[in-house]
Every structure is written in C-alpha cells, then in structure tokens.
C-alpha cells in the first residue's frame, strides 16, 4: 500500500488549507450524465468557515463529498484538483484517503439517525478512529472518548459511552457524530446540513457547539446548508451554489450588504422573518432547479429569475469580481446596479420575463396573485 501520508512536514502555513480548482463531478445515469458539480473553484484558509448555500439539487452535498472523496465507486467521474495543505489529493485512492479521514479532514452528516451504527456502542464508534490513527490503547482511547463527549456537551459521558444510539435523542446523536468527527483533531471539518434534521432550539445548540469547537481548535470548516439564516452569523465567507456552480461568493457581511446575484436575493426573501406581520405574503422562487442532465442554455437561473433578459437565455454569465475584493458573482444584470434595475423595470413593464411563455403564470408578480 502506497503510504502518501500528509505529515506535519508538509504544513505550509502560508498556503491555504484547502484549494479546489475547477472541480467537476458527474454521475452516469440511464437518462444521461448528471453534472452535479460543474466547475467549482474555492480556497479556504485555516480557522475560517465557508458557508455553502443552495436549494436541494444545487450540488452542495456532492461538492462536500467530492472534497472528502466519499463518492460512489462506480458511474462517477470527478475531474479537477483538490489541494489539501499544499498536497494534491485529487488522485488519492480509498486506501490513501483513509489516512486523511480523521486526522486531517472529517465530516458531519445530515441525519444523525442514520449516520451512526445502531448496533455498536457510542464509545466504540468514537474510539475506532482513535485506535486506528492515534495508536492508542483501549483505556486511553476510552478516556479520550469520555473527554470528547464532555466537550460536545453530553451529560454523564462516562455512562453514555456504554449506550447505543437509539438510547439518545436526535440532538445528542448529532453531538456524538460531531465528537466522532473531532476525535482525531481534524484541520478541516465538512458539515453537511448538520442541523436540518433537528429542532430550532437544538439547531442553535449544535451551531454554537460547532462554532466553539472550531475556534478552540482553529479548524477550517465548510458549513453546507439550504438556510441562509444558518450561515449568516456563523460563516466568514459564503458561497451560493446553483445547478452545480458557484453563482456568488463573498464575505458574509459583504454578501448580505450588497448581494449581486438575483438567486441570492430570492433565497433571502423567501425566508419568513419574525419582524414581518403575520399573514405577510412571502416572496417565493417559482419553479424548481433545472434538470442537471440537460441544463438550459445560458444562465441556469434565468427561467426562474425576475431580472432575466434575452441575453441570459443565450449567454452564460461568467463568475466576475465585483467592486469589493473577494466578491464574485455570475450575472449579466446584477442586483443593485443600473443594469439590474433597468432589466427588472423592463420585465415589470412587460409583465413577464423573456424566459417565460405567455401562457405561463407570471413570475414578475408574486406567485398566486393571478389565477
């Protein structure tokens, strides 16, 4: 077995921890090739959190799994480079990745009900990686497992290590999943919708826990979610994904203060806000994400976009920098600019966008107000 371990010697503190360049992941299906991730590039520095936001089917989970090397073995094609700590890991085999998973990068999955082994005690699921990677003996590993459960806020940890997942609540199970991910001290944590299956109150607890652990350990974190509210106060940078591509990327404050991409705006507007009076009509995004087997020509958001013009249907907008450094967006008629305002005014005057047939219900007016 080729042992290309990433050792402390390769730690270049001046290189970013994670560099992803033109990552493309596609699945072969009977209907054709599904391009789930279609040319994503990003960099992540140590100790920072990147929020990846998008609807179901935008490719955010496949992106996280592609970085982790957790894709199915067959009918998958992944191209592009993934550099971790200066080392190119894109052609690592599963056997080689095994030395990366745990001490270097770890993942927290969406559903704590199914990501734990139901017939193995919680303690053993934590000590498994400690004994494999850290060459610990049973007693040492067990002590560390108890310490880890304490640090993720599980009461009576010495008792809990002897329990099975079904004896724990959903929030507790997610804490155990986090403890497993943190066990070997990873430098990069990928959290794939870690709170989607949980209650609001438990969600706040888990996000606080991830925050605290990240700061304490100076980890880099990729936080994947469909809720802009979840990443707003937690992530340093936010990447908005749509149809397998990053369509806008900026620091969190910049993104919320001056978003350029109509999709980001639409996502934000569809969240019901507490300060709205009750019975406020919500702005929803009409339609659904495009078919990734036959993505539409031009901008993939154009069919649902209220700013869309003829040009959007023909020509795909590239990811271009905005005025502020580090802010990228992909739109011909960006929000908050003269071009965007004109495009919206034109569509409102027309009562429809060029992407729609006249027969369709207008998306320029709020959905449902017609008919």
């Amino acid at each position, binding site marked *: 077995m080729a042992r290309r371990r990433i050792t402390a010697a390769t730690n270049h503190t001046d290189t970013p921890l994670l560099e992803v360049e033109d990552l493309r992941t596609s699945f072969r299906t009977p209907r054709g090739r599904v391009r789930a991730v279609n040319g994503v590039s990003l960099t992540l520095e140590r100790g920072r959190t990147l929020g990846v936001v998008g609807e*179901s089917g935008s490719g955010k989970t496949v992106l996280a799994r592609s970085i982790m090397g957790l894709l199915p073995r067959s009918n998958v094609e992944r191209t592009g480079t993934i550099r971790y700590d200066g080392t190119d890991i894109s052609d690592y085999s599963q056997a080689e990745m095994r030395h990366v998973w745990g001490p270097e990068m770890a993942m927290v999955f969406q559903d704590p009900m199914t990501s734990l082994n139901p017939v193995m005690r919680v303690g053993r699921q934590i000590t498994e990686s400690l004994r494999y990677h850290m060459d610990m003996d049973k007693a040492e590993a067990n002590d560390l497992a108890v310490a880890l459960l304490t640090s993720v806020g599980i009461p009576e940890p010495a008792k809990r290590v002897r329990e099975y997942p079904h004896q724990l609540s959903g929030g507790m199970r997610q804490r155990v999943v986090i403890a497993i991910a943190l066990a070997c001290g990873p430098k990069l944590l990928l959290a794939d919708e870690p709170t989607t299956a949980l209650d609001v109150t438990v969600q706040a607890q888990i996000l606080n826990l991830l925050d605290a652990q990240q700061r304490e350990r100076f980890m880099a974190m990729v936080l994947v979610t469909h809720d802009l509210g979840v990443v707003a106060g937690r992530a340093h940078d936010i990447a908005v994904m749509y149809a397998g591509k990053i369509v806008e990327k900026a620091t969190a404050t910049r993104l919320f203060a001056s978003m350029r991409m109509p999709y980001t705006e639409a996502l934000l507007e569809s969240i019901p806000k507490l300060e709205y009076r009750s019975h406020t009509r919500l702005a929803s995004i009409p339609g659904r994400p495009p078919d990734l087997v036959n993505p539409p020509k031009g901008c993939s958001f154009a069919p649902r976009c209220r700013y869309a013009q003829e040009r959007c249907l023909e020509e795909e907008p590239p990811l271009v920098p905005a005025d502020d450094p580090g802010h990228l967006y992909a739109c011909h008629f960006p929000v908050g600019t003269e071009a965007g305002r004109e495009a919206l005014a034109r569509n409102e005057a027309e009562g429809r966008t060029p992407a729609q047939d006249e027969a369709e219900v207008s998306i320029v007016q709020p959905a449902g107000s017609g008919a």
Partner: protein
Amino acid sequence: MAGSGTAHLRDDRDDIVLRVEDLVVEFPAGRGRKVHAVSGISFDVAAKETLGIVGESGCGKSTTGKAIMRLVPLSGGTITFNGAEISSLRGSKLRALRQELQMIFQDPVSSINPRRPIGDVVAEPLEIWGHEGDTGSVVDKVLYDVGLDPEIARPKRRHEFSGGQCQRICIARALVLDPDVIICDEPVSALDVSVQAQILNLLEDMKERYGLTLVFIAHDLAVVKNVSDRVAVMYLGKICEIASPDDLYQGPSHPYSAALLSAIPLPDPTVVPDTVALDGDLPSPMNPPSGCRFRTRCPRAEERCAQEEPLVREIGPDHYVACHFPLVGGVAPPAGSTPVGVGSQR
C-alpha cells in the same frame, strides 16, 4: 396543573368551530408506566381562523393534531366540533366526521401511495363518500387550484413529482371534500426554504378560497407567526402561552417562548447569534418534572415552580400565559417587583 386552565377559552364567541378542553393523551409504555404525551390542554379555534401550535419535538403538538382527528385514543377531555361533541364518536359516525376534518402530514412523499396515479389519489375521498356527479372535474379543479396542471398531473405517480409538488397534491387531497377544518402537521418542515414559501402562500390562498379553519403545527416560530391568527406554545404536553402572533413576537411572556424566539437563526450577519440558547433536552414525558414542566430548563425557575403548577391566566388583551414569573415585554421584570398575579394568591 402546569399549563392547564381554561382562562383562554373564548366562551363569549359564537363562531367557535373547534374547542378542545382538558385533552389528555397517554400511551402505555409497559410495566405500568405511561408516556404523558398531552396532559390537559385546552384551546378553541374560531371560524376562518388559523391556530398555530409551536414547540419542540416531543412536546405533544402532533399528538394533539392526531387527537383532534381521533387518530389516537383519548385518555381524557372533550373535543367539540361545530357544537357537537366528537370525543366519544365511534365507527361510521367517526368516519363521517372526517369529511369535515382533514389532515396534511409532515412528509408529503411518504403520505402518497407510490403505485397509484395522482388523479386516483385525489379522487379517492370522493369515491369513498359516494360523491355524485362528475368526479373528474372536481379533481381537476382542485389540482388547478393548488397550482398543478391537471392534464399533466393526473396520470403521473408520486416519484415524478418534487417534494413541494407532492405537498401540493396532499393539500389537493385534503381540499377535495371541501372540509371545514384542516389540521396541518408540520407541512413545510421537510421542504427547502424556497419551496416552503410557495406552500405557505398556497395555504393562505386556499384558506381564503375555501373558507377554511386551520390548525397549523410546526416547530419554527417564524413560519407559525406568518400564517397564524393565534399561536399556542406547547412544552411537554402543556400549553405555555397563547397569544396573537404579533404580541407573542413583541413581548413573549413565557421564558420558553422567549427561548424559542431567540433560537431562530437570523439571516443577518451583523446580529451575533444568541449563545445563551436553551440548554439540554426535553425531559422524558414518561416522568415529567413536578410543578411547572419547564422548570428544569428555565433560567427563571425558583422553588415555587417545583411545588405548584402555574395555571393559564390573562396578562394582556388576548394574551395568556402559564408561568409564575412571566417576562414583561420580553425581558425579566426588575428584581423585587411582584410578579403579575402572585399577590392575589397569597
């Protein structure tokens, strides 16, 4: 008992469609133990009103919804629907009731039969109740109303639809009998934010068009606030607070309501997330705490809360709370001030 009491029932109104009084639902858990899912809650819903029920998993909100539908056995209490008591109905009378009382479930995909075309799924309630006339046109109309093209949708099966479309189909199936009341049990929690907004808008439209009364159950206070005329906050089988959504948001009185509100992530990076979120988990409903059931997690709990269960009482116009030490205007009143309503009991 904590969270019990009927001060918030509106006896003076004559348009009450649904009234639940001292509802108790307990499930046997073996060896003589019981799960206290719902422990004596009361509420009423007026015609064309939406009552939101909000709380964490395990607080008994779904059981309450199912109890109204009579899908779970009641251990006590009465349910009155359009003036008639329905808590003791059985057999065919009970089944007939469900023409007036329909339910929408949390997971839209698993609540549709995968093997039947959508047209049949939506038409089934009509066939069961021997609808006279053209079933097809009724189905088409209701599918059209929920935003689906009947021609395209009718022959398809559920796997050909997205989650949001499946929820539209479930709404169509609930509407097809033109019921009075629909119980919506977490209808949007399995959906994306963008689709969630579509479904919430649709429910509001349908409420308007079909003159519905809704009971809307969810764990997200922001969602509940948006659709409700009145909100009941539940905790471990009891009602904590009941108020209009705008009042509840402006000034939550129960510490639990305040905690729920502060847990909602705000889409604004300038707001530092609240790090004093509610600690711990819900206590076991098999062995609920004495006194006020929230006291084990309550930042304001005192000796009295363990001894004595707070009753629901009015603290403002149409604003009721079950707490010994309620917050005033969403914050703790200054130390030394007498908690509202305490003086009269001493």
